[in-house]
């Protein structure tokens, strides 16, 4: 097995036994990147020099105590501020923005010894479900280069699937970790809202955003969560709760675990392959002693609508700071007002503009009650749906995405179509619950299908427990995309290596 095919645990084992050095680990991953990045286009910026520096420090600092991820190479989604490194959010607006401070999660990750390979591509400002909204280039799904990797953390998910990193960080506002993880056949975990600090995450929708790991295995995700979770005094919304050792939950059995199956997620006309794979996974869990229970989440059908009011409203406000005054892109204008207008018109892509306008409209005088106010009430109803369901279930199982990866360009003409592909992941953000996506099968054409497990607030341990048990009873996570490798050079519209 190649080094780049290993996840965190596999590499850690080799490092601990001193069979490889952190430097050699990096060599292997950069070689892999050289080989396939030209096809995948996961990275906006590679930070090779810095990576080797970090590896050298890791080697010196050793791997005991808090250095649980010493020498492990990570890819970081490019909407996380990394000090001294370009943080672009895949937008022209921040194309040359060099973050003057470090986000809490990357600080904790490097504090645990993690090494950064580079910043990955995303839908511009995390707005999208396919990474086609990146202002720079579209990342390809390593399983089928004609298809999207999902979004908005498409770059991170593709990098993990293609072996271009051991693990990655993504962010999730309406499914942006889970959906690309599902479409790329890897693990993606969105923690409970408040579990992980948002300080340094370029805000899209403040009450919905969360940062989480995208990894090859469930245990890897638990290890990353251990390192990044916990209260941060710089984030008022981070929960003052103790952080358990999430890896301990991996290996616990699922006997007697009640698995809720929400009827609204298994509707007439759903993709038969997705249905089969997910139902198969549930059967598998049942075979291991879990108890499927039918539940109902009656307001599911309103989630996308509520989300697209709330998220766009918050986004319209969060993106008001991009005005060309203090940082980022500035267009020439004949006066101040014109400067604002031109800067934002040229700096933002169409999806971002669409959402800003939608949000502005929903908040504007006369419409607040009908849209924003109402969406907040629906949010309460959705939250209550889950509370009800969790009285009879310990965990809820659903498909992550209604379909496997679609072709590049297939849905980009109709924004609404794109929004509807978030239907299974969105409610979880509205309710603030934790969710994980793990591979549970493939389509006839070899495209990954994801199983989503949803837990109660702050019950990531339950997710890890069930996800790990299922994962270990299958071979899905061992499959790799058959990526033909180039010999070296990046071609065409590739990322810039530092």
């Amino acid at each position, binding site marked *: 097995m190649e080094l780049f095919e290993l996840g965190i645990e596999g590499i850690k084992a080799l490092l601990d036994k001193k069979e490889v050095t952190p430097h050699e680990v990096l060599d292997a991953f950069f070689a892999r990147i050289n080989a396939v990045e030209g096809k995948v286009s996961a990275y906006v910026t590679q930070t090779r020099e810095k990576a080797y520096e970090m590896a050298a420090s890791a080697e010196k600092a050793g791997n005991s105590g808090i250095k649980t991820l010493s020498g492990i190479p990570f890819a970081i989604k490019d*909407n*996380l*501020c990394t000090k001294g490194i370009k*943080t672009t*959010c895949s937008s022209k607006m*921040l194309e040359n*923005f060099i*973050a*003057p*401070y470090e*986000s809490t999660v990357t600080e904790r990750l490097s504090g645990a010894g993690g090494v950064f390979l580079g910043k990955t591509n995303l839908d511009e400002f995390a707005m999208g479900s396919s990474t086609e909204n990146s202002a720079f280039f579209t990342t390809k799904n390593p399983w089928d280069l004609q298809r999207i990797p999902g979004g908005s953390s498409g770059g991170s998910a593709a990098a993990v699937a293609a072996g271009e990193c051991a693990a990655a960080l993504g962010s999730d506002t309406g499914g942006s970790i889970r959906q690309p993880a599902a479409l790329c056949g890897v693990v993606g975990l969105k923690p409970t809202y408040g579990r992980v600090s*948002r*300080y*340094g*995450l*370029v*805000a899209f*929708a*403040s*009450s919905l955003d969360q940062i989480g790991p995208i990894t090859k295995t469930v245990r890897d995700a638990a290890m990353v969560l251990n390192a990044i979770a916990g209260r941060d*005094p*710089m*984030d*008022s*919304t981070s929960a003052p709760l103790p952080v358990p050792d999430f890896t301990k939950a991996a290996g616990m059995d699922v006997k007697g675990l009640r698995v809720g199956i929400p009827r609204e997620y298994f509707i007439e006309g759903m993709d038969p392959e997705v249905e089969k794979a997910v139902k198969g996974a549930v059967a598998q869990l049942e075979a291991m002693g879990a108890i499927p229970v039918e539940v109902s989440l009656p307001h599911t059908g309103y989630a996308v609508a509520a989300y697209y009011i709330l998220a766009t*409203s*918050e986004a*319209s*406000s969060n*993106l*008001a*700071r*991009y*005005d060309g*005054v*203090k*940082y980022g892109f500035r267009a020439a204008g004949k006066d*101040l007002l014109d400067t*604002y207008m031109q800067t934002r018109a040229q700096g933002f892509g169409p999806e971002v503009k669409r959402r800003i306008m939608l949000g*502005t409209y929903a*908040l*504007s*005088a006369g419409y*607040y009650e009908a849209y*924003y106010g109402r969406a907040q009430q629906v949010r309460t109803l959705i939250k209550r749906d889950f509370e009800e369901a969790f009285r009879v279930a310990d965990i809820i199982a659903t498909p992550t995405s209604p379909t496997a990866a679609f072709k590049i360009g297939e849905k980009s003409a109709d924004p609404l179509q794109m929004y509807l592909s978030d239907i299974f992941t969105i409610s979880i953000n509205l309710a603030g619950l934790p969710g994980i996506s793990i591979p549970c099968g493939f389509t006839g054409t070899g495209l990954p299908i994801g199983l989503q497990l949803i837990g109660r607030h702050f019950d990531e341990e339950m997710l890890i427990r069930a996800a790990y048990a299922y994962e270990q009873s299958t071979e899905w996570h061992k499959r790799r995309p058959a990526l033909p490798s180039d010999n070296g050079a990046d071609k065409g519209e590739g990322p810039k290596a530092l």
Partner: protein
Amino acid sequence: MSVRYETVIGLEVHAQLLTESKIFCGCSTKFGLPPNSQTCPVCTGMPGSLPVLNEKALLFTIKTGLAMNCGIAPFSRFARKNYFYPDLPKGYQISQYELPVCERGHVEINTGEGFLTRRIGITRIHLEEDAGKNIHEGAGPYSFVDLNRAGTPLMEIVSEPDLRSPKEASAYMRKLRAILRYIGVCDGNMEQGSLRCDANISIRPEGSTKLGTKVELKNMNSFKFVEKALEYEIKRQTSAVKNGEAIIQETRLWDTSTGKTHAMRSKEEAHDYRYFPEPDLVPFMPAREWVEEIKAGIPELPDARRVRFIAAHGLSEYDAEMLTSERALADWFEESVKLGAQPKAASNWIMGELMRLLNEDGISIEESPLAPAGLVELLKLMDSGTISGKIAKTVFDGMYRSKKSADQIIKEQGLVQISGADELGAVIDQIIAANPGETGRFRAGEEKLFGFFVGQAMKATRGKGNPAMINELLRKKLAGN
């Protein structure tokens, strides 16, 4: 029959809070540092930054609310006020909308008619962040933005439209300022901008209860300008209404150079601030014990102190009002009384000599080189006759300038009062002998020449002569005894 109009005024006062750090980040609030040297990712609105509330800012706001008889909201939260401006780094101001910290309070103001007071309602007090500063250099095509001030905690105090005249408006502002300074939450410096005032003013026919169209006034940075701007606006509106013109609801700026208000030049479209609850900050529910603790920490406020000064120290309304206008001043006075000074005497010396010297030096009473104990010593020396009242002024000055005690100065400069009958008698004999003309005329009946002799005696004793003694001896000797 001509209609008489009455004025309806409401004030929105912004007070910068005296915290060490900004409201949502740890940057210093110190004034006057080089541009953009006191900022961080949070107060410059960098991507990914988040606000965290300064506990002191909240405490100060609750304290202010309690001092102004407000109810403290059991549940309160922040909201975003969205608009674009270069000094507003995030493109929104974190402020409060529906659920402010304090509501429904009042202060009493002196209406200027005797010592009657009127109650002015306070609608709400809320907490928000200040914006940065825009600087325009001359007529150049640029403006320059300094974000040092961005994020300074600001308290907004909104009054009910209860004020009925420009004088009441400035009395209200003075009262607010006094209270804010008393409780130590704001230094109330209008010139420096730590206390700012916007006014809403309308007029209506006397007796009407419906409010007229209100005009917002800005850019008044002193009590005097607040009064002048309001006075001008009343004239303008009254004249307009009398001419049958409608009052336009608009924002007008006070222009010191012209003495008028004029409508803002820029297109003032009605702002749609699109308020919504701030998702990056969690609501607060101040614990009852904490609010009680804050309340207990409020010192005696100006009004209560003034009333007590009149009752306990027998001061006049005027003196009490003056002494309680600043907490430090009232403290200084009370300290001197505690140490044994007679209240009226202490009051005179403080309001007279001490204030004169402090004003000359441009310093506040907290910086006074003379402490209350010094005044007490001086007054004792006067009472015992050791020095005369006239000399006392010299001694006081000396004590202030040199920080020496009264005793030291009197000894060093030989200022002890001369009261000895023999010594004074000899001096007076000499004066009478030296001025035969005046002596003759006085003895012939020109009573008013007495003052001349007193003056000569004072001159001869270099002011140290005991006036009573001099009087007595002069009377005797001039009468021929």
